[in-house]
């Protein structure tokens, strides 16, 4: 046998078109709501219109008499059998965590909470009957404002006696990772610069395009749940842990899932209710939410007040950073819950060498929808705050915002670098990404244009925004999670099955919902095993196929799941090696593996790995005692997070007479290490950018004074459209990650994390000549106009001083209350 075939070209780095597309562009899809099973019943939920109320009676008689209704059930009917929704991350040992039953029987804690469920033969009949369920409520005072919640005057859960769930603190002096921030602040107060600001992270809604849907089939030996979820494996564990069904009797399938963005990282009341009812009626049951239900009751994101103090020397060197947060959990502590702002705690120091750092976060319960992960989860909040602060510092010092960043950032030769928050950044090159971005953007020319337009007092002013972000992704080293009291590990699993015909099946514990892992993972396996890209099949999202995994979130899929795959391929090659040596009648020490073939060193003898797979299948001629298999699995626990970074630059035009903002240009250069597929990377960046820009300019979940979600449909929750957005100028730079063999860093959240402060910095930059230092998000034309023209009206600049008058900073931050929404 001779080596004559050319090794396939390297797949990693190729802009492969996606394997997933063929089905999706022709309508051959398997979203959960498409599933129809024999005898399947449908559910409709009855939800509370009140934010906080006692349930005094529920009359289900009329609903039960409605056509084709099988049953109508309340919390009392389902009792303990319904299980409980879990919080997997109690951030402090004494965290207050209200019990979260899927259907409470006595009291509702937010508008949209389920109080009864109708089971009927069709979805339409279930919904008709749900209208006939008569619930009497005794309304209770509702707490709907974060700053009011902290006073504990009105309680979200009166039994707890407080709205304060947990106070989480990190202090660099106490942790031994840096100095004392109070010392830095007093010194800056005497002879340096002190910047104090308060920012509002408005409430957002993930708004994945596929509404959540769940089907449960109780007719097999394993009870099967299909769910529009990011986390089938975690769901299986949580169902077993809370509903008394042995884990081995549970199969969870995430079929095609239409987007998640963190919003489908949850163990939901709807899933638990469908599970309970299917078990009760012994028939397959489906529940698909309406969009209004999704906006009202699927978890929301962000919703924090951020108070920041930066201490610096007069030359712009930052000497300390203090962060105090109020974070809204909503009515219940969700699966990650207070862990979201804690994830941000490690990122406020960002790319900078701050010598002292103090972070505290008070999580609070309110009578609003629960909050949890939304794309970026903690890091967008941190990045927004610090990147806004660096701009404020630059403005105070009268220098270019990039100059003050460069003065403080970690230089490329200083990696690996241990930060003041205690993380070790393995690699990066902020100088290179910034230089490339400035060049693409035409930074100096745009600054010159800005000067001209300022001098000419143009009606339309140009603003230039900067964001030099980093983030931590690849959740996560299990030991780190353990030290933070998270309820699970952060490893990932992969399995390679070498099929008899030379094809390869790959099983991953990652659970994609739009990312394109079937394509990128095929590229990795194709390169590692030297098999054609087309011959690799990626299996995922079904616990009967992929028995082990921790699913998809936190930009972990490639860097943790991909690395697990790479390690499994190494094991396949190791297992095949002695068999190859045997078949080639050579010493194992002389075996070499390249381009999918084993060869005998110094000879032209060789054999393809796929031929060994066939030889193993027949088992006719294996070494004595050899197991007839070269399949392998690997479970990989990351040794560190990884730290993608990038420089984002944005130019906006602001009409100073109408407040209208037009985005003119957006350039970003992201360093995400080794790029597996540039096409997929661009897609992730584009989508991430628009979600981050949407926080800056358009989106906000707004409640009225009664706690009703005003933005309860896509008429009012204003997702951007194609007409609102522009085409982007994106590029990558690459310093390889040193903690995984692929050299890759995460990219799923980068665009969202970086873009929000970039855009707000641009808007504020345009308005600096008017003495404006902040505009609250979303920066609507009304808010922009008021910031310029109506500064006495307490909209752009609040009247209540949160900081000492001696800093000269009172009155410059936006301090309007959280209850005020856009357009009010």
């Amino acid at each position, binding site marked *: 046998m001779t080596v004559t075939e050319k090794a396939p070209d390297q797949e990693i780095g190729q802009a492969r*078109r*996606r394997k*997933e*597309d*063929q*089905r*999706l*562009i*022709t*309508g*051959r*899809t398997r*979203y959960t*709501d*498409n599933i*129809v099973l024999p005898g399947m019943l449908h559910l409709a939920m009855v939800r509370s219109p009140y934010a906080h109320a006692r349930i005094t009676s529920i009359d289900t008689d009329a609903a039960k008499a409605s056509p084709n209704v099988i049953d109508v059930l309340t919390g009392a009917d389902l009792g303990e059998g319904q299980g409980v929704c879990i919080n997997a991350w109690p951030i402090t040992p004494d965290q207050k965590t209200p019990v979260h039953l899927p259907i409470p029987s006595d009291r509702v804690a937010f508008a949209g909470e389920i109080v009864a469920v109708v089971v009927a033969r069709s979805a*339409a009949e279930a919904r008709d009957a749900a209208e006939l369920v008569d619930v009497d409520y005794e309304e209770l005072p509702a707490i709907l404002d974060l700053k009011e919640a902290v006073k504990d005057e009105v309680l979200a859960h009166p039994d707890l006696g407080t709205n304060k769930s947990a106070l989480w603190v990190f202090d660099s002096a106490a942790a031994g990772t840096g100095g004392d921030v109070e010392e830095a602040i007093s010194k800056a107060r005497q002879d340096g610069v002190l910047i104090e600001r308060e920012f509002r992270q408005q409430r957002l809604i993930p*708004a*994945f*395009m*596929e*509404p959540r849907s769940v089907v449960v089939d109780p007719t097999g030996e394993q009870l099967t749940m299909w769910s529009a979820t990011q986390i089938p494996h975690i769901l299986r564990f949580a169902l077993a842990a809370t509903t008394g069904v042995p884990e081995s009797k549970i199969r969870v399938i995430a079929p*095609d*899932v*239409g*987007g998640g*963005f963190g919003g489908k990282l949850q163990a939901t009341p709807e899933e638990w209710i469908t599970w309970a009812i299917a078990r009760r009626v012994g028939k397959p049951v489906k529940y698909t939410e*309406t*969009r*209004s239900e999704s906006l009202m009751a699927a978890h929301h994101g962000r919703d924090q007040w951020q108070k920041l103090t930066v201490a610096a020397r007069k030359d712009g060197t930052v000497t300390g950073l203090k962060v105090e947060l109020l974070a809204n959990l909503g009515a219940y502590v969700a699966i990650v819950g207070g862990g979201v702002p804690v994830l941000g705690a490690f990122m406020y120091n960002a790319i900078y060498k701050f010598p002292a750092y103090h972070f505290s976060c008070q999580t609070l319960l309110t009578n609003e929808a629960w909050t949890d992960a939304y794309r970026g989860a903690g890091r967008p909040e941190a990045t927004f705050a610090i990147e806004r602060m660096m701009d404020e510092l630059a403005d105070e010092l009268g220098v270019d915002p990039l100059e003050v960043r460069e003065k403080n950032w970690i230089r490329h030769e200083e990696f690996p670098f241990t930060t003041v928050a205690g993380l070790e950044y393995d690699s990066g090159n902020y100088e290179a990404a910034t230089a490339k971005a400035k060049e693409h953007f035409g930074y100096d020319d745009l600054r010159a244009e800005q000067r001209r337009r300022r001098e000419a007092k143009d009606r339309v002013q140009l603003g230039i925004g900067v964001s030099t972000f980093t983030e931590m992704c690849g959740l996560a080293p299990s030991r780190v999670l353990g030290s933070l009291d998270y309820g699970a590990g952060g490893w990932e699993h992969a399995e390679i099955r070498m099929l008899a015909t030379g094809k390869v099946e790959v099983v991953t514990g990652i659970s994609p*919902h*739009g*990312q*394109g892992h079937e394509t990128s993972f095929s590229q990795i396996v194709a390169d590692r095993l030297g098999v054609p890209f087309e011959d690799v099949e990626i299996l995922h999202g079904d616990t009967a196929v992929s028995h082990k995994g921790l699913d998809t979130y936190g930009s972990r899929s490639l860097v943790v799941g991909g690395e697990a795959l790479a390690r499994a391929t190494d094991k396949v090659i190791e297992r095949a090696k002695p068999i190859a040596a045997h078949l080639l009648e050579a010493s194992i020490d002389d075996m070499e593996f390249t381009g999918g073939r084993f060869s005998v060193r110094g000879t032209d003898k060789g054999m393809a790995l796929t031929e060994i797979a066939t030889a193993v299948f027949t088992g006719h001629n294996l070494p004595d005692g050899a197991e007839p298999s070269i399949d392998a699995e690997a479970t990989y626990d990351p040794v560190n997070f990884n730290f993608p970074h990038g420089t984002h630059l944005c130019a906006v035009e602001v009409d100073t007479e109408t407040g209208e903002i037009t985005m003119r240009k957006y350039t970003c250069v992201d360093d995400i290490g080794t790029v597996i597929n540039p*096409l*997929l990377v*661009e*897609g992730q960046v*584009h*989508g*991430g*950018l*628009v*979600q981050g820009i949407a926080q800056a300019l358009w989106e906000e979940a707004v409640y009225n004074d009664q706690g009703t979600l005003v933005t309860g*449909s*896509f*008429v009012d929750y204003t*997702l*951007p*459209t*194609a*007409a609102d*957005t522009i*085409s*982007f100028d994106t590029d990558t730079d690459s310093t390889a990650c040193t903690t995984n063999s692929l050299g890759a860093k995460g990219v799923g959240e980068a*665009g969202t994390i970086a873009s929000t402060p970039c855009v707000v910095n641009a808007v504020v930059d345009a308005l600096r000549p008017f003495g404006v230092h902040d505009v609250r998000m979303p920066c609507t034309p009304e808010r922009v106009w008021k910031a310029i023209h109506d500064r006495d009206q307490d909209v752009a600049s609040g009247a209540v001083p949160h900081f000492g008058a001696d800093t000269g900073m009172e009155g410059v931050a936006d301090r309007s209350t959280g209850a005020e929404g856009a357009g009010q």
Partner: protein
Amino acid sequence: MTRIEMTVDGARVSDDVEPRMLLVHYLREKLGKTGTLVGCDTSNCGACTVHLDGHSVKSCNVLAVQAAGHEVTTIEGLAQGGDLHPVQEAFHDCHALQCGYCTPGMIMQSVDLLNDNPHPTEEEVRLGLEGNLCRCTGYHNIVKAVLQAAGGASS
């Protein structure tokens, strides 16, 4: 119940439906045309876009009985004889989809847009897709795909 007949993706179909049944539910629940998807309750998202007599409509905004006697084309009937429509090809080539949920509606709307205006500018594409929401792609590659399909059609 009302008796309706129509042509869907080239096949004649006939059913008894409730007068209140939406076209999208008729397609999905009666005909099993699950390629057409529901993303909202307010006709904002456009995931359910199909063609009615060759023009795009949001099928959540049309009653099944209103479509009686007409010709409906869904995403499942767009490819002809195993060949993808140029817009489908362009969506694949330009990575204009991620989770795929908006894709059927987005493609059907794009086809209609190009039928009306075979050589649109980027601005015209963006305005023409304003009624279809996508949460994954940031629209960049969707716009690129429509422009590419337009260029391909003209050459």
